[in-house]
C-alpha cells in the first residue's frame, strides 16, 4: 500500500504512525522475551542450552524494533482516522469461544446458532432476518457436511 503524502493524517501525532507502533510492538515482544528467558540456561556455543537461541533472537528483534521505530519517527503513514471498530474486535473472536464452550454440552446445532448470534454483533450491517436465516442454514450445513459427510465425532444435540 502506498503512503499518501498529502494525507492530512501525516499531521497527526507521531505516536499514530504505523512504523512507530510496529517498532514499539517488536520492542515490547523482545523485552518480554528477554525478561521471561532471563533464567534459561544459555550453555555454550557447542552445546547450546534452552536459552541460547531464544535470547539471541530476542536481542536481534529488539534491534530491528528500534530500527523500525526510528524509521517511523522520520516519517511514513499514520493510522487511518476514525474510531476502531471495537465490536468487530470483540465479538468476532468471542463467537469462536462461545462455539467451543457450547459444543460439548449442547451439541453442534446449538453451538452454531450461538456462534452466528454472537458473530452477527460484530458487523454494523447485520440484519435480523438474514442472521436468523444464516443461523438455520449454517446449522444444517454443518451437520450435513461435518457430521454426516466427514463423520466428525461431535455431538449434534444436547446430551441429557
Amino acid at each position: 500500500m502506498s503512503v499518501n503524502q498529502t494525507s492530512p493524517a501525516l499531521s497527526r501525532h507521531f505516536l499514530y504512525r504505523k512504523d512507530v507502533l510496529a517498532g514499539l510492538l517488536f520492542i515490547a515482544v523482545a523485552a518480554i522475551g528477554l525478561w521471561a528467558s532471563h533464567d534459561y540456561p544459555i550453555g555454550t556455543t557447542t552445546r547450546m542450552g534452552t536459552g541460547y537461541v531464544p535470547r539471541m533472537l530476542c536481542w536481534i528483534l529488539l534491534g530491528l524494533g528500534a530500527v523500525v521505530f526510528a524509521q517511523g519517527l522520520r516519517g511514513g503513514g499514520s493510522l487511518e482516522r476514525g474510531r476502531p471498530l471495537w465490536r468487530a474486535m470483540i465479538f468476532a473472536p468471542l463467537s469462536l469461544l462461545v462455539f467451543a464452550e457450547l459444543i460439548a454440552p449442547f451439541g453442534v446445532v446449538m453451538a452454531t446458532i450461538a456462534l452466528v448470534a454472537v458473530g452477527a454483533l460484530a458487523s454494523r450491517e447485520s440484519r435480523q432476518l438474514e442472521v436468523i436465516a444464516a443461523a438455520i442454514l449454517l446449522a444444517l450445513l454443518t451437520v450435513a457436511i461435518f457430521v454426516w459427510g466427514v463423520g466428525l465425532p461431535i455431538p449434534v444435540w444436547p446430551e441429557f
Partner: protein
Amino acid sequence: MDFLANLGLGFGVALTPANLGFALIGCLVGTLVGVLPGIGPVATVAMLLPLTFHLEPVSGLIMLAGIFYGAQYGGSTTAILVNMPGETSSVVTCIDGHQMARNGRAGAALTVAALGSFFAGTVATLMIALFSPPLALVGQSFGAPEYFSLMAVGLIAAVVLAHGSIVKAVAMVLLGLLLGLVGTDGQTGGQRFTFGVTILSDGIGFVPLAIGIFGLGEVIANLVAPQQRRELVSSRISNLWLTKEEFRQAWPASVRGTLIGSVLGVLPGGGATLSAFAGYVLEKKVARDPSRFGKGAIEGVAGPESANNAGAQTSFIPMLTLGIPGNAVMALMIGALTIHGIQPGPQVMTERPALFWGMIASMWIGNVMLLVINLPMIGLWVQLLKVPYRQLYLAILLFSAIGVYTVNNNTFEVILTALFGIVGYIFIRLECEPAPLLLGFILGPLMEENLRRAMRISGGDPMIFLNRPISLGLLIAAALLLLVVALPAIRGKREEVFQEK
C-alpha cells in the same frame, strides 16, 4: 528412464475413485474461495487441514493442493467480472480483464484465463516431475550446516519478495521463529515462554496460529473497513470463444507467463502473487504497443493468469524435495505432513513414492477438472458473488471454529485462535506482512535443531557455514539477495512491481 514408471505409479494412486473425489472437492472449494473476495487460500487450507487428519496422507494433500491452485483459477473470475480480485494473485488481472468485460469480451477473457491456467498447470506439473528427483538427490547430500543455510536463504528470500518494509518483514520472521520455539525444548527438555501454562509446553499449534492470523484477523479487518461496492458486469456472457486475432495475441503471452511463473514459483518466497505481477510487467515490456494495456489487452490477462497458476504449482518443488516451504500455504503443507508422521525432506520421494508421485499426478488431473468446473459452470460462480460479506463472514467464523476445535477437541486452541485473530488484525493495521511470520514459525524449531547440530560438529566454530561449499554458496546467495534489495535502483523497481495496479 524411471520417469514414465514414476508417473504411472502416480496416476495409479491419483486415479482411485477416492482420490479423484478428494481432488474434485479440493478444486471446487478452491474455486469457491478464489471467487469469493475476503477469504484466501491460506485461511481455507488452515481451516480444512484438521479434517484431513482423518484421511490418508496422500488424499489429504491432494485435496489441500487442489484448494491452493483451484483458488488461482477462481480468483480470475471475480477479477474479470467484478473488477475486484478474488485473490491477491489476481490483482493484476483486474486491470485488463475487467476492461475486456466492459468491451463485451468477458467470455473471451474468462476463456483465455482458464486455458492459460490449464496450459501453465500442465507445464508446471511436468516441471515438478522432471526437476524434483535431481533436486531431492542434491538434498540428500545435505548435512546440518547446509540445511541451516538453506533455511536462512529461504527466509531471506521470503522477506525480499514480501512487499512493504524489509526491516519489518525480517522482524516478522523473528517473531515467527520465537513463536515456533514456545514449548518444551526438544534437546534439553527445558520450558520456554510457557509462562506457567502447562498446555503450552506442547508448543503453539500451527492451525490456531494460521486460522487466527489469516482467517479471523482478515475478517475483523474486513468488518472494520467500509464495504466496497461490487460492480458486476451484468451483460450476459454469450460467447466464450476467442477470435483468431485474440488467440494469436494470447498464446505467446501465455507461454511467457508460464515460463516466468514456473521459475519464480520455485524461488523461496515466490509463488502465485509474485508470478502474476512479474507476468504483467513482462507483457507490458515486450508489447509492441504498451498503451493498449489498461484498455483490455488480452495479453494482460493471458500472461499473469498463466504465471500465477504456474507459480502456485512449482512452489511445491522446494516443499516436496527439500522440506522447505516457499510460501505460507507450503508452510501449512509441511505442518500437515508432520502431523501425519512424515518428516518432510528429500527422503519423502524415496520412502513414500506413492505419496510423492500420486500428488504430482493429481495436480494435472486437478487442472483438467478446473477447466471443466470453470468454463461451463461460470454462471453458478457468478451467482455466489451475490452473497454479501455481512453473511459470508458468519460462515467463515463458523468454519474457523470447527477447524480449530476439531484438531483435538480442545478449547485452549480456540482461545489461542481468538488471540491470534486480534494480533492478526493489529498486523494488518500496522502493515506488517504475516506470511514471513508463518514461515519463521514453521522453520524455527528446524533451524535451531540444525544450528545446534552444526555447532556440535564443528565444536562451536561458526566458520563451518563458510567452509562447506554448498553452505557457503547458499549464504552468498542470501547475502546477494539482501544486497540487491538494498540498492536504491532495485528498491525502486521492487516497489514499482508491487504497486502496479
